[in-house]
C-alpha cells in the first residue's frame, strides 16, 4: 500500500505543498478526488483521481439484454437521463433499421430539451452555491420542479426517467402535457430576468469568473472537449446541428458559440442555451403529429452482428454509444464516450497558475457529473 501511494502522489519541493480536495468535498459535485501542488496560493500542478463511483456499467451491459441495459444509462449522467436513454435507443434502432414514428420522434425531442433545461437550471443554482450565493439555488429549483412535475406525470419518475424504449417511447404523453409545457415556458420567460439580475450582472460573480479558467481553442480541440465547454472556446460542435437525430432536423435554433474561453463565457453559453431550448420546445409543442407513439418491434431484440455507433448532444456535451453485437440477445460490448470524461481533462490547463479559490469557479463552470466520468 505504501509504495503504491508513493508512486501516485505529486512530488513537492521545499516551499510547495500538496493539498487533497475530495473525495468528499462540496465543490467537486460528487466524489472526485483532486490532488493539488500549491506554490503559495497558486496551483502549480493538479492531478485528478477517478474511480470512487466506478460501478462497472459498461461491463454490466454485457450481461443484460438490449431492453434491460437502457435503464442503467440513466444512472450515468443522471441530469441528462432521458438523453442517455435516447442515445442507446437510437443505436439499437439503427442496428434493427426500425423507422420510428413521427410522434415518438417529436415527443423524445421535447423531453430531451426539457431535460436540458432542467439540467442547466440545476447547474445555474449550484454555480451560485459554489460562488457563495445561496439565493440562486432556490430560484433555480422553482422552475426545475415544474419540469420535474411534467416528467412525473408523463413517465412516473422525476429524475431517472426510462421513458425511451427501442422504437419510440414507453407510453403516450399525458393529456395535460401540452398545456403544462406552455405554462412552464410562459413562467420561465417571465422569470428569466431574475436569473440575470441575481447572478449574471453581479459584480462579485463577474470578477470571480471573467478571465478565470481560460481554455484556448487549440487545447479544447486536442483534449476532445465538447458541449458548452468547447463552444465557449469557439468550437462549433453541437451534434444536434452536425448530425441531426430525431426531430432536430425540422427545428430552427442557433448554436451558441463564444470565443472568450473563460468561466464567464461558459456561463453565458449555458444561459443562452436555455433560451434556445425553449425556442425548440415552442416550435414543437404545437405540432406534435398524430399517430403511434411506438413502432412495433419484437419482444426479444437480436440485432444482426456488427458495430453500431450513435452520438447525441447531452446537456454537457457529446455522448457516443458504441454497441458491438454478435447476433445474440445481449450486446457483446458496449462503450460509452461520455462528455464529462474529456471535459475533466480540460481542468488542468484551465487551472494551472490560477488561485486555489478560482478552482471552485472553474469546477462550477465545467459542470462535471462524476458518475458519468467513472461510469
Amino acid at each position, binding site marked *: 500500500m505504501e509504495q503504491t501511494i508513493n508512486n501516485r502522489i505529486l512530488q513537492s519541493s521545499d516551499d510547495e505543498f500538496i493539498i487533497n480536495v475530495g473525495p468528499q468535498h462540496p465543490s467537486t459535485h460528487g466524489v472526485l478526488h483532486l490532488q493539488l501542488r500549491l506554490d503559495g496560493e497558486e496551483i502549480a500542478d493538479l492531478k485528478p483521481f477517478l*474511480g470512487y463511483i*466506478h*460501478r*462497472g456499467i459498461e461491463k454490466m451491459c454485457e450481461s443484460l439484454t438490449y431492453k434491460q441495459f437502457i435503464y442503467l444509462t440513466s444512472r450515468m449522467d443522471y441530469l441528462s437521463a432521458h438523453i442517455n436513454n435516447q442515445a442507446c435507443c437510437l443505436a439499437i434502432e439503427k442496428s434493427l433499421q426500425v423507422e420510428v414514428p413521427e410522434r415518438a420522434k417529436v415527443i423524445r425531442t421535447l423531453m430531451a430539451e426539457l431535460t436540458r433545461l432542467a439540467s442547466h437550471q440545476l447547474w445555474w443554482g*449550484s454555480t451560485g452555491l459554489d460562488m457563495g450565493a445561496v439565493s440562486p439555488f432556490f430560484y433555480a429549483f422553482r422552475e*426545475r*420542479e415544474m419540469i420535474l412535475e411534467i416528467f412525473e406525470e408523463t413517465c412516473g419518475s422525476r*429524475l431517472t426517467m426510462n421513458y425511451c424504449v427501442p422504437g419510440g417511447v414507453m407510453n403516450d404523453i399525458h393529456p395535460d402535457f401540452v398545456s403544462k409545457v406552455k405554462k412552464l415556458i410562459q413562467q420561465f420567460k417571465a422569470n428569466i430576468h431574475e436569473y440575470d439580475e441575481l447572478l449574471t450582472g453581479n459584480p462579485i460573480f463577474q470578477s470571480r469568473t471573467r478571465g478565470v479558467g481560460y481554455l484556448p481553442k487549440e487545447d479544447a480541440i486536442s483534449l476532445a472537449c465538447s458541449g458548452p465547454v468547447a463552444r465557449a472556446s469557439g468550437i462549433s460542435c453541437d451534434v444536434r446541428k452536425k448530425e441531426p437525430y430525431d426531430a432536430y432536423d425540422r427545428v430552427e435554433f442557433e448554436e451558441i458559440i463564444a470565443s472568450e474561453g473563460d468561466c464567464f463565457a461558459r456561463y453565458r453559453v449555458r444561459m443562452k442555451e436555455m433560451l434556445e431550448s425553449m425556442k425548440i420546445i415552442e416550435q414543437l409543442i404545437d405540432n406534435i403529429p398524430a399517430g403511434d407513439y411506438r413502432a412495433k418491434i419484437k419482444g426479444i431484440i437480436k440485432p444482426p452482428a456488427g458495430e453500431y455507433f450513435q452520438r447525441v448532444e447531452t446537456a454537457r456535451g457529446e455522448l457516443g454509444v458504441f454497441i458491438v453485437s454478435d447476433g445474440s440477445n445481449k450486446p457483446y460490448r458496449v462503450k460509452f464516450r461520455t462528455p464529462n470524461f474529456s471535459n475533466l481533462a480540460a481542468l488542468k490547463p484551465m487551472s494551472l497558475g490560477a488561485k486555489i479559490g478560482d478552482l471552485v469557479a472553474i469546477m462550477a463552470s465545467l459542470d462535471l457529473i*462524476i458518475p458519468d466520468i467513472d461510469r
Partner: protein
Amino acid sequence: MDVIKKDFDDFPGEVYQDRSGHSSIIITQIDRFANWARSNSLWPLIFGTSCCAIEMMSAASAKYDWSRFGFEVARASPRQADLIIVAGTITLKMAPVLKRLYDQMPEPKYVIAMGACNITGGPFMTHSYSVVNGIDKIVPVDVFIPGCPPRPEALLHGMIKLQEKIMRSKAFVIEKPKK
C-alpha cells in the same frame, strides 16, 4: 408563586408560567429534554455520490424545504455534523472513505441510507463487480429509504422517522451497534 399550566404540543414535559408571564417552570426528564433538542436540530453532512444527491438537493429547496424540520444546517465537515445521509451508490473504493467520515463524526451520530443502492446494491446488486451491496456492512444504519432515487417526500418521511427514533432513545447512553 401562583402558576398556570401552559400547553405546548411539541415540548415533552409540563410548562408552567406565572400570571405576569415573567418566570416559567419546566418539569421534564433530562432524557426527554435532550432528545427533544437533539431531534429538532439534526445537522446533515453534505455527502452525495450520485443521483440521490439531486433529490436531496430538491428536498433542501423551496418546494420541499427540509428546514421546516430542522435539517437546514448542512455541514461540509463531518466534525460538525450529526447525521450522514448516504445519497448514492457506495463502491468498494468509496467504502473506506465512508467509514472514515462516519468515524470522524462526533457522538451521537446517525446514518440514513438513501436509495436502493445503499440498501442492497439496487440496480447494481447482481451484475456489478465494484458496488457494496448495502452500506449496513460498513456503518450502522438507522433509517433505510427505498426508491431509485427516492422522492424528496420519502426522504422527509425517513428523516421524521429518525426523529421519532431519537425521541425513544436514551440520551446519555451510547448504544453500540450489534455485531
